[in-house]
C-alpha cells in the first residue's frame, strides 16, 4: 500500500512539475496573439501554433512566424497565412483598337470557325468552337489587354 501511495504522489508531483515547466496552450495563444498583427489569427494545440489570416506581403508572413516561434513553450509553427492580393488603384491599361485588331487576328487565325470583331476595346466572338479550343483561344485573347471579351460562341 505504502509503495503505491508513494508512486502515486510521485506521479502527481511529476505532472505538476511538467505542467509548471511548459505553458498551457491557452496562455501561449494569449501571449502570441498579443504580439502578432491584428489580422493574424492564432490557434494552439499541444504547443503547436497555427497562424491563419491575410497579410500584406511575404515579409509580414515571415515576421509573424518568427514571433510565434520565439514564444516560450511553442514546439512548432504551421504558417497558413496568405498574402492579400493588391487592389491597385492604377487604371487598367486597355490596348488601342488598331493594336488589338491586329493581335486578335493573329490569335484567331488558327480557329477558323470563329469570327472576331473589335470595337472600343471589346472583342466579340461569334461562331462555334470545341471546348478544348475555347480555353486556348480565351487564354490567347486575355493577354492582349482587351477591355472585355464578349464571348457569344456556341460550344460544341
Amino acid at each position: 500500500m505504502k509503495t503505491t501511495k508513494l508512486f502515486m504522489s510521485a506521479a502527481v508531483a511529476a505532472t505538476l512539475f511538467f505542467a509548471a515547466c511548459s505553458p498551457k496552450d491557452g496562455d501561449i495563444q494569449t501571449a502570441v496573439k498579443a504580439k502578432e498583427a491584428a489580422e493574424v489569427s492564432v490557434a494552439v494545440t499541444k504547443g503547436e501554433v497555427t497562424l491563419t489570416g491575410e497579410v500584406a506581403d511575404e515579409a509580414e508572413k515571415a515576421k509573424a512566424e518568427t514571433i510565434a516561434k520565439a514564444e516560450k513553450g511553442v514546439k512548432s509553427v504551421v504558417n497558413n497565412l496568405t498574402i492579400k492580393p493588391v487592389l491597385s488603384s492604377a487604371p487598367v491599361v486597355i490596348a488601342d483598337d488598331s493594336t488589338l485588331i491586329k493581335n486578335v487576328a493573329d490569335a484567331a487565325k488558327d480557329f477558323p470557325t470563329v469570327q472576331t470583331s473589335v470595337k472600343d476595346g471589346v472583342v466579340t466572338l461569334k461562331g462555334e468552337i470545341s471546348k478544348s479550343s475555347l480555353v486556348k483561344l480565351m487564354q490567347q485573347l486575355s493577354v492582349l489587354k482587351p477591355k472585355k471579351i464578349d464571348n457569344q460562341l456556341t460550344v460544341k
Partner: protein
Amino acid sequence: MALQDKYKALTDAATAAGISDLAVREQDGVLYIDGTAADGATKDHLWDVYNQIDPNFAGGDLVLNVNVAVDAAVTQAKVITESSNLNIRKGPGTDQPIVGKAAHGEVITLVNRSNDLWWLVRTNDGEEGYCYAKYLEPQA
C-alpha cells in the same frame, strides 16, 4: 465589389499559387486579374477555376491576364503546335510573309523574346524569323 465576390475562389487560388505581381482591379463592370505564374500548370489551374465559376467564359465580366514566367537564361524552345508545322515569318504578325517552317516537336533556338506574342527564333537550318509564342515551349 460583387465581381470580386463572384471570383473570390479565383483570386484566392491565385494568391495560394503564389502568382507574382498579382493585381485585381474592377473597372466599368469588368474584373481584371493580372499576374505572372511560375509555370504553365499553375496558369491552367487558374483557368480551370475560372471555368468552374463561369462555364464556357460567357459572362464577359473577367479578363484573366496571367502569363507564364520565362527564365531569361533559356535559349531553346520546342514547337508545340497540334500537329502541323509552325510558320516562321519575316516580322511579328500573320500579315507578314512566311520565310520558313519549324516542324512539330522540333527544338529551335530562341533569339529574342522582347515581343510577348512573337518570338524571334532560328531553326537548326539557320532560318531566322518570328513565330507565334503560344506555339513555343521554352526548354529548361
